[in-house]
């Protein structure tokens, strides 16, 4: 790699405080409780991972942090501001400080790569065209796709689309980057690139990172702190080494990828024997 993007500082400032605080959050959809007393914090300038079996509400948690949904009770603080009480205009102000990487990239399909990355700049600033061009090319260079500036989203592979989306979410220099399942469906090379980029954004730019995923292996390399959510609460928290030796059954099942355990292999069903011998319904 001839350019300097490979150079990543290895030391970082000590944690000073938490950028996001979630306190005793309760949230239910259609009478089904998703969170019942969820409490966790996301330290500033660090990589925090949220893990958990499918359907535990990981994406819902992101919707709560970004103010797309409101909790039934409890507090969600972003840099001291209570997200759920903000008016739409204030929420939009706050979201300028967050960048979000969607699972599929969510690029605007009627614009090329360059325009996608330029989109937030054109919407929120009155920068001259020459400066926008420089910013966009810098961001694309950081994700290694300066040469793809003129491609349309349909011409990109899954990994490339996610890297463009990352460049776009960095365009406004946010305080926090949120990654929703960034590794899903990627080949090992693309996955390696995304892992490197997440770390690079965090180490080099000091951006607080929140990674929601269930790819235990990747997160073990990346995350400073991991939370495992199960049953609407934090089941375990700590570094990956701490989680590996955790005595909770659900944590053990999740981290070691066991097929059966507290999360059963079988979906709840009537007795097998009786159902086979019984009358067809």
């Amino acid at each position, binding site marked *: 790699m001839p350019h300097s993007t490979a150079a990543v500082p290895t030391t970082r400032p000590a944690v000073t405080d938490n950028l996001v605080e979630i306190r005793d959050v309760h949230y239910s959809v259609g009478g089904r409780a998703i969170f019942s007393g969820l409490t966790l914090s996301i330290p500033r300038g660090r990589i925090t991972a949220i893990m958990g079996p499918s359907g535990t509400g990981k994406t819902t948690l992101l919707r709560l942090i*970004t103010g*797309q949904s409101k909790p039934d009770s409890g507090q969600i603080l972003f840099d001291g501001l209570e997200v759920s009480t903000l008016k739409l205009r204030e929420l*939009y*102000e706050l*979201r*300028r400080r*967050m*960048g*979000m990487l*969607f*699972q*599929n990239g*969510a*690029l*605007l*399909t009627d614009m090329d790569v360059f325009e996608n990355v330029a*989109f*937030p700049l054109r*919407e*929120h600033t009155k920068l001259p065209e020459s400066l926008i061009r420089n910013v966009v090319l810098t961001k694309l260079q950081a994700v290694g796709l300066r040469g793809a500036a003129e491609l349309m989203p349909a011409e990109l592979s899954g990994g490339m689309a996610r890297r463009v*989306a990352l460049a*776009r*979410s960095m365009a*406004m220099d946010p305080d926090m980057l949120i990654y929703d399942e960034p590794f899903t469906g990627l080949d090992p090379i693309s996955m390696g690139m995304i892992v490197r980029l997440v770390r690079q954004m965090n180490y080099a730019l000091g951006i607080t990172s929140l990674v929601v995923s269930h790819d235990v292996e990747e997160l073990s390399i990346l995350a400073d702190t991991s939370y495992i959510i199960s049953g609407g609460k934090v089941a375990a928290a700590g570094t990956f080494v701490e989680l590996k030796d955790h005595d909770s059954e659900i944590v053990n099942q999740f981290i070691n990828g066991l097929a059966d355990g507290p999360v059963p292999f079988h979906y709840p069903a009537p007795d097998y024997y009786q159902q086979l011998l019984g009358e067809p319904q």
Partner: protein
Amino acid sequence: MSLFAELLESSRNFVSTMGAVTLFFGRTMVQLPAALTRPGLIIEQVHNAGALSLVIIMTCGLFVGGVLGLTGYDLLLRFGSEDALGTAAALALIKQLGPVVTALLFAGRAGTALASEIGLMRATDQLTAMEMMAVDPIRRVVVPRFLGGLISLPLLTIIFIAIGIFGVQVVGVQQFGVDPASFWSQMRAAVEVSDIMEGVIKGTVFGFACSLIAVYEGYNAIPTAEGVGRATTRTVVISAVLVLIFNYMLTAVML
């Protein structure tokens, strides 16, 4: 379910949908001033909804005019008044066929394109991504498309009518030999500005209805392939029915 319960259920659905459409329209109007500061986006949508519909509108206009010429000539010949072909055909096109057929074609071409485009943006998280970038999708996506349709349809209606009259002329004057002087002079004498206004008003009302339905259905589509398909179908069906109902009401009012 009893008939009464079914009626009650569908009335309640109708009222709740009307409420949702009204609220959606309110949100659109709130964002209108901000959207007007970006005329480039609106012009782009006038191009998408209007200019790209031109070929189909012109082709259909020519053939509708041609059929009107054939039938009109046959009918008027029986009364010995084929010189009135220009007047009869022009009034039929300006007051009824022009606005209605253009709106139906518009719903099929531009309306479905709008609904499926916005629906797919919903299904692929593009609208959510905009919200996350602090960009209101109503302002950035919905308002320019709504205005694009609203501006395009009256213009397309006028073009349809003009091409239609040309089609009548081709059949009536050039094929059947109706006297061109009486064809044009009778038309000019009989058609009044109020007739043309009726056509333009209808085009504007239909443009409003078709565009609002298309953006509403697209924006509220269930984010799946089936949901987007259903939104597209509903756009055409609801637009067509509303255009015909509104046409009756407007004709009755402006008679």
